[in-house]
């Protein structure tokens, strides 16, 4: 369901000036790891066109500059090296804008996000606030900000005189889902947008515990540090937000349009 963005049906604004020094002339090349529904994934599971919010937003961005979007498929591990080796101009990959990452790359905000808790339907109802996770076993994707959030929660639990949560990290999100469904872990922590998708895919077995965490972090589009593209891209995203394109794409991908209000 590659969404038609509003800018394609309404009055087409004159294309903004495209950034210089693109990897492939005439194309905006983006590193992407299409295993993260609903942000980026293959239409047919393991093959087909890449769809999802990020994919559609990337296409809209390219169009904004009068370019064509080209996806350079990479694993999660390969996203940043791909950018550094100029295989792509930017990463559209559901990456949190963390301090450590901003030390090595630039990023422009694209949507707000936050951790969400998934658990079996019965248990999910019991989680109302972060401290409810104390003493529970929680699965997370390794090296994610979500995993880091559980690590900080350990201290909070200790301060509150409760048991620490037990964190188990897996390389892929699918394995965290499996861990909960197999009873290896009681809950899993995942970014809210992906969490909703997982719950929908595993209805009856997994449910989102709403509102446990604040939605206080931001996904960004990453570019090389101090690259001339960085400011241009930030401007373009602002423009796409302003004219409602991003909100429409969110809606088309069954996401709350409010999440793109990050400016």
């Amino acid at each position, binding site marked *: 369901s590659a969404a038609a963005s509003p800018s394609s049906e309404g009055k087409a604004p004159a294309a903004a000036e495209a950034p210089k020094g693109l990897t492939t002339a005439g194309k905006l090349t983006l590193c992407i790891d299409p295993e993260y*529904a609903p942000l980026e994934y293959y239409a047919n599971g*393991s093959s087909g066109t890449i769809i999802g919010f990020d994919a559609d937003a990337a296409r809209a961005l390219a169009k904004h500059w009068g370019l064509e979007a080209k996806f350079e498929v990479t694993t999660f591990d390969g996203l940043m090296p791909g950018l550094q080796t100029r*295989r792509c101009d930017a990463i559209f990959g559901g990456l949190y804008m963390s301090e450590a990452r901003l030390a090595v790359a630039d990023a422009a905000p694209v949507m707000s996000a936050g951790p969400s808790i998934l658990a079996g339907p019965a248990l999910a109802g019991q989680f109302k606030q972060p401290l409810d996770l104390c003493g529970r076993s929680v699965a997370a994707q390794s090296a994610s900000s979500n995993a880091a959030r559980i690590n900080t929660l350990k201290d909070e639990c200790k301060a509150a005189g409760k048991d620490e949560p037990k964190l188990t990290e897996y390389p892929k999100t699918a394995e965290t889902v499996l861990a909960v469904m197999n009873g290896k872990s009681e809950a899993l922590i995942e970014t809210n947008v992906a969490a909703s998708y997982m719950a929908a895919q595993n209805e009856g077995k997994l449910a989102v515990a709403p509102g446990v965490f604040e939605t206080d972090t931001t996904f960004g589009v990453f570019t090389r540090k101090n690259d001339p593209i960085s400011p241009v891209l930030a401007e373009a995203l602002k423009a796409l937000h302003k004219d409602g394109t991003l909100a429409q794409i969110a809606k088309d991908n069954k996401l709350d349009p409010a999440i793109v209000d990050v400016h």
Partner: protein
Amino acid sequence: MEFDIGIFVQQLVNPSYLYGAFLSVAVAVLALVLATAVGFAVALGRTSQSRIAQGAAGFYTWFFRAIPALLVLLIIWNALPQLFPVLRQEWFSPFIAAFIGLGIVEAAFMAEIIRSALLSIDEGQNLAGRALGMSPAKVMVKVVLPQAIRIALPPTGNEFIGLVKFSSLASVISLQELLTTAQVGVNITFRYAEYYAAAIIYYLIIVSLLTLLQNYVEKKFLWTSRSKPKKPSTLEPIGQGVHA
């Protein structure tokens, strides 16, 4: 979640698995060819008189025996293009990077296989060839190599099967071979059992076919005038190998 035969069969006939299996085998074949060529050079270096050649060949085997192939793939795909802009071009695909990376690592193992095969040829063969007036190169090509190949065949076959399974490491440089095909599907659909079962079937078929091929080739090297083999053939050849 129960095992859904429908999804399983659908995956089994899904052309992307077939394509993934093809990629796995193709990467393995090219990597083995590269590894055999480089490994032969390294083996000659290790048995050579020259201290420098010995040292270089020894370093190669030591280094690539120690480094995980995954790291080599990451380096070839991510670091080398920063040093050599030519590698940033379109032709340097994950497929090419994968077979080169796996081939380079595998060469360290093939070098040892080839070296021990060469060493196991009786010195009398070399003497007999030279006594006939053959040049050292002729002795190598006409006398030693045909015999060394026979000895190197079983372990090489095992390495090849290892490489097929091993090519899944190339998913890290976004080559979507057989195992990655299943994993990507799992990440979206969460249908573990069906997707992985389909992959297992493919692996069993591939490895069984390769084992049959290996037995066939080995029979060609029995060197008897009769057509019937001396040893009973089994699905599994003697010797160990890589595994993934």
